[in-house]
């Protein structure tokens, strides 16, 4: 069963020249127990999707979707309070900059305790509840691999190293026993050993607690080792999505192929000192979006039809949006 099912999500931002479609008909599903990777280059709207799911939108944003459901309940039509309860108990978000996502003026203990919802405590008198919360907090920290929980809880965010901060963020995310964790580039700017630890931690949580993870990022190597399925995003449009191995072995969209080719670690046959492949040009800014398929101007296979946005097509579980996919001969 799909936990989170998003169809044709469009996010518009009120700019100076009218509404800009920052996300254009995004499709994304997350099944329970899977790790779904959301991949795209910087500026492709990955973080916008995360914010759209988590609610809390600025007043100059507008969201429309054909379907945006959480466990078959419509997220868009529910009121703020119901939405907040889902965010409190069922979905958790780990942001990309752990230090900035923590209140600098509060100790980590305060911030961890407040994210433990009251329904996880057994019925006790109210003066016993703080103690119960502390016990849970210590357990959570041990779970994510912070051994010295006393020292960690006493500290302010700026007093702990980045990796502990990120592990702490994962601990706060785990506090309400969520069913889905959205990890928005959780290993950005980290050392390779720390990165490996955090990725292992997420994978282990997925295996042991049957936790679904939406992993947002652009580290293809890490993603390919942990994710079960992948959605590729370009400039606010979903380009291709499907099971990890299918997408990786046989990309159907020219952009996915270019993306996979651009990662040197994926190409074992790469001779030394050969030029790395990349698409011409850069990702367009939000003010100058091309019509139709947004990859059009950069696409090696683009033709006249590409000025119309392609409908998503499907081969088994593998979806792609392209008029001239790679498995068909070029005309």
């Amino acid at each position, binding site marked *: 069963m799909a936990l989170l099912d998003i169809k044709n999500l469009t996010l518009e931002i009120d700019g100076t020249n009218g509404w800009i479609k920052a996300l254009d008909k995004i499709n994304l599903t997350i099944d329970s127990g899977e790790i779904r990777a959301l991949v795209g280059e910087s500026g492709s709207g990955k973080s916008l999707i995360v914010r759209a799911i988590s609610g*809390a939108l600025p007043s100059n944003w507008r969201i429309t979707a054909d379907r945006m459901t959480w466990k078959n309940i419509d997220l868009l039509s529910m009121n703020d309070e119901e939405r907040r309860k889902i*965010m*409190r108990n069922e979905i958790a978000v780990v942001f990309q900059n752990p230090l900035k*996502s923590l209140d600098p003026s509060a*100790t980590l203990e305060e911030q961890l305790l407040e994210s433990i919802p009251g329904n996880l405590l057994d019925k006790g008198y109210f003066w016993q509840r703080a103690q119960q919360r502390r016990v849970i907090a210590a357990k959570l920290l041990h779970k994510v691999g912070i051994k010295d929980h006393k020292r960690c809880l006493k500290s*302010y965010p700026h007093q702990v190293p980045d990796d502990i901060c990120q592990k702490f963020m994962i601990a706060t995310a785990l506090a309400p026993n969520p069913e889905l964790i959205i990890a928005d580039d959780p290993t950005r700017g980290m050392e390779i050993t720390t990165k490996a630890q955090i990725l292992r931690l997420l994978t282990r949580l997925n295996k042991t607690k049957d936790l679904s993870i939406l992993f947002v990022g652009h580290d293809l190597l890490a993603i390919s080792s942990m994710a079960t399925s992948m959605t590729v995003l370009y400039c606010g449009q979903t380009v291709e999505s499907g099971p990890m191995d299918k997408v990786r072995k046989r990309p159907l969209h020219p952009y996915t192929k270019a993306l996979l080719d651009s990662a040197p670690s994926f190409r074992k046959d790469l001779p030394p000192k050969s030029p790395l492949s990349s698409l011409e040009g850069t990702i367009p800014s939000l003010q100058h979006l091309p019509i139709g398929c947004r990859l059009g101007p950069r696409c090696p296979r683009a033709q006249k039809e590409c000025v119309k946005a392609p409908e998503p097509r499907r081969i088994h579980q593998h979806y792609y949006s392209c008029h001239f996919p790679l498995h068909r001969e070029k005309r």
Partner: protein
Amino acid sequence: MIRYIVRHINLMLFTLFALSVASFALAYLFPADPLVNLSGVQRLSEEEFNLLSEKYAMNESIIIQYLQYMSLLFQGDWGISFSSGLPLGDEIKRSLPASIELSAYSLVISMLVGVPLGFFAGLRHNKHTDYVLLGVSVAGYSVPVFWLALLLIMLFALQLPLFPLSGRISLLFDIPYSTGFILPDIWLSDINNKTAATINAIEHMILPTLAISVVNTAIVLRLTRSAVLDVMGSDFVQAAYSRGLTVSQVIFRHGIRNVLLRILPLLALQTSTLLTNAMIVEVIFSWPGIGNWLLQAIYQRDFPAIRAGMLAVSAFVVIVTVLIDLFARLIDPTQGAPRRGSL
């Protein structure tokens, strides 16, 4: 921690040193004889002249003179006033508390009104409430204090005789001087109608305090509003919302503390504006404070009084500003945070 204290005290000492040099230089820069300007004694006889020359070390080098001047300052001998002939130290001790009292009350009022309104405006950013409050604060910020004070007198003292026109307390009450602040003085004194005196003093206080508070409230409101916008738009507030906290939980647990930590150092900078406005308003309300006193000194070319008054007021502003700033840093938990490298 220690580093901050040392740095702030260091800053304070150097600024005070510069101020004392300036005040000493004034004795030479004002017209008339430096000895007269320093001591405040006019029409010296031969004998007095020699005595005072000895006292102020006028025959020594200028550095020795400065050191002598400083040691006299610390002994409390600030010279005497041309106009009243009284020791300046005592005169300042009488008038400065009155100004501080006025500024302190208006600071309290502007915090009590400005901070909540600023929060309100910031939380309703780009809505009508925000625009209205911002408009009112621009108006309050732009109104000249002296004109506002006159307007208040016209409306609430002359047209509607609700409040007394000027002064600090009715002449009927004879309050002996002990601290210089009127309300504590009333409570410390042994007059038999303390309640009546308190009410009377408060009635006198309302109009001047109001006149100063308007500008200050507008400033506090704007500072708070921009700090609220800053904090509520920051990543950690977004993160707190995404953790499913309610709006009030986010504001009370994460909003208020961060906003106050941000505006406190900015408020320290407003001390000088506050005291300046108080000094202007004092003149209009004949409030016996340092502003009124200093202005009289300027009218009468009372050079020793100008010198001493300038030193007292500026030293007070510097000390208060530095102390508030130091306090703000000491209670800020992020102080002393090392700079982080990032990849």
